[in-house]
């Protein structure tokens, strides 16, 4: 006989689902889809230097439904302020206006603002976190304002050239595509341990070029001619 207490706590039989011990492992990746703009890219997310609305797309939602807040940049970080930008293209070389780009980078001294970077020979910058997020605009262009990063250690005794870690998300991308952005005049590009794993003829897809207006420009090509090198890491 069933008591009332048992009824209160009675659960359906377990299905094969996220709690099945036999299935325990990485939660699979899924696309961000085309409608992430009210949920992910906050105002200022693409501005790692000052206070602005860079990165967000308020044009894609009613203003009363913008709830993501604004970045709380506390002060000006040390180092050379740079703008990095580029266009994201699909396999038909059409710009992708619903992509999202994220960056992760060291500060000007080559230190990551992370508990997992325990080096004490490179100083943290209280005004620099090194993480940014940008929607592409209606023309498929992403744009960050940030600090030119310093060099960080690589495998063994190597030193990496200045670089940004880059993630590409979008409708049609079932998982993020990781890549990197290097600088055409970057110290140590020729000896960089990651860049040297890239076939020489494709290295250029990771190297931003300086435009006359000073912007560091790197297109991200998802497919086809000049396809960006993406990583399995």
């Amino acid at each position, binding site marked *: 006989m069933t008591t009332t207490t048992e009824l209160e706590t009675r659960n359906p039989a377990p299905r094969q689902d*996220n709690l099945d011990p036999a299935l325990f492992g990485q939660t699979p990746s899924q696309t961000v889809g085309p409608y992430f703009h009210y949920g992910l890219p906050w105002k200022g997310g693409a501005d790692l230097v000052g206070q602005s609305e860079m990165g967000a797309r308020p044009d894609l939602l009613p203003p009363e439904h913008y709830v993501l807040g604004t970045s709380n940049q506390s002060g000006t970080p040390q180092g050379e302020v740079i703008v990095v930008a580029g266009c994201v293209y699909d396999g038909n070389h059409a710009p992708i206006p619903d992509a999202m780009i994220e960056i992760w980078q060291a500060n000007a001294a080559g230190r990551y603002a992370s508990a997992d970077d325990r080096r004490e020979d490179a100083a943290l910058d209280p005004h620099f976190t090194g993480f940014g997020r940008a929607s592409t605009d209606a023309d498929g262009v992403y744009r960050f304002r940030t600090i030119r990063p310093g060099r960080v250690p690589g495998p063994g005794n190597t030193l*990496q050239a200045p670089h940004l870690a880059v993630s590409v998300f979008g409708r049609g991308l079932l998982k993020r595509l990781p890549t990197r952005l290097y600088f055409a005049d970057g110290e140590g590009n020729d000896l960089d341990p990651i860049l040297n794993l890239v076939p020489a003829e494709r290295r250029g897809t990771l190297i931003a070029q300086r435009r006359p207006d000073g912007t560091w420009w790197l297109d991200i090509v998802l497919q086809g001619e000049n396809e960006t090198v993406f990583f399995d890491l």
Partner: protein
Amino acid sequence: MSLILPYSREDAGSPPSLSPDYRSTVLRSPRQPALIVPQTLTETTGPSDAWPKLMGATMTDLTAQHKGEPQGQRIVVTGRVLDEQGRPVPNTVVEIWQANAAGRYIHAKDDWPAPLDPNFTGAGRVFTDAEGRYRYVTIRPGAYPWGNHKNAWRPAHIHLSLLGPAFATRLVTQMYFPDDPLIEIDPIANAVPMPYRQRMVARFDIGITVPNWALGYHFDIVLRGRDQTPFEDDHDDDH
């Protein structure tokens, strides 16, 4: 020099970039194989500690962001963020976005004829506690049609975005609801092979339900883990 303890690579449940039944992948997936690279300090670090400074406070109740209550079935979703060794991932951000009860997104590009809800945006943000737990309140999203093929319908789902501790652990996924027949015929969910697809299906749990108020679902999220136990002794790092 610094010791690098790499995170594991993606496992058998990871979808391919190209899955032609999901048509948008055809022109947006690379044709060259991904280049296998070692993880460096760049990939094993991440901004997890700085998240509140970057974006601000949590938004744990998606039903309380406007003047009135949104339409639909109120639900509680809770669970833990874990690594592959089953260890909790504390203090990490989970970003949430979803359609409303009628299956409509508050987005200029979503124009199918289902009603918008002025009291529902559908964006949230939670942080895990020391045991990796999170919890938020929302309404159950509706299914909706999309343009992938004639008469295509997405199963009800909640979008989730996690950073985890490092660049290597970044994850964007979708949570599905139990017993939804649309999952089995959805090209996006089906890009993940069985049985791993079921990792994205939440469990109804009467213990999470709030009497006279909200239904409850349990969803644990598992991020890439480190193959070894991290060294507890940091003193070797300074030579």
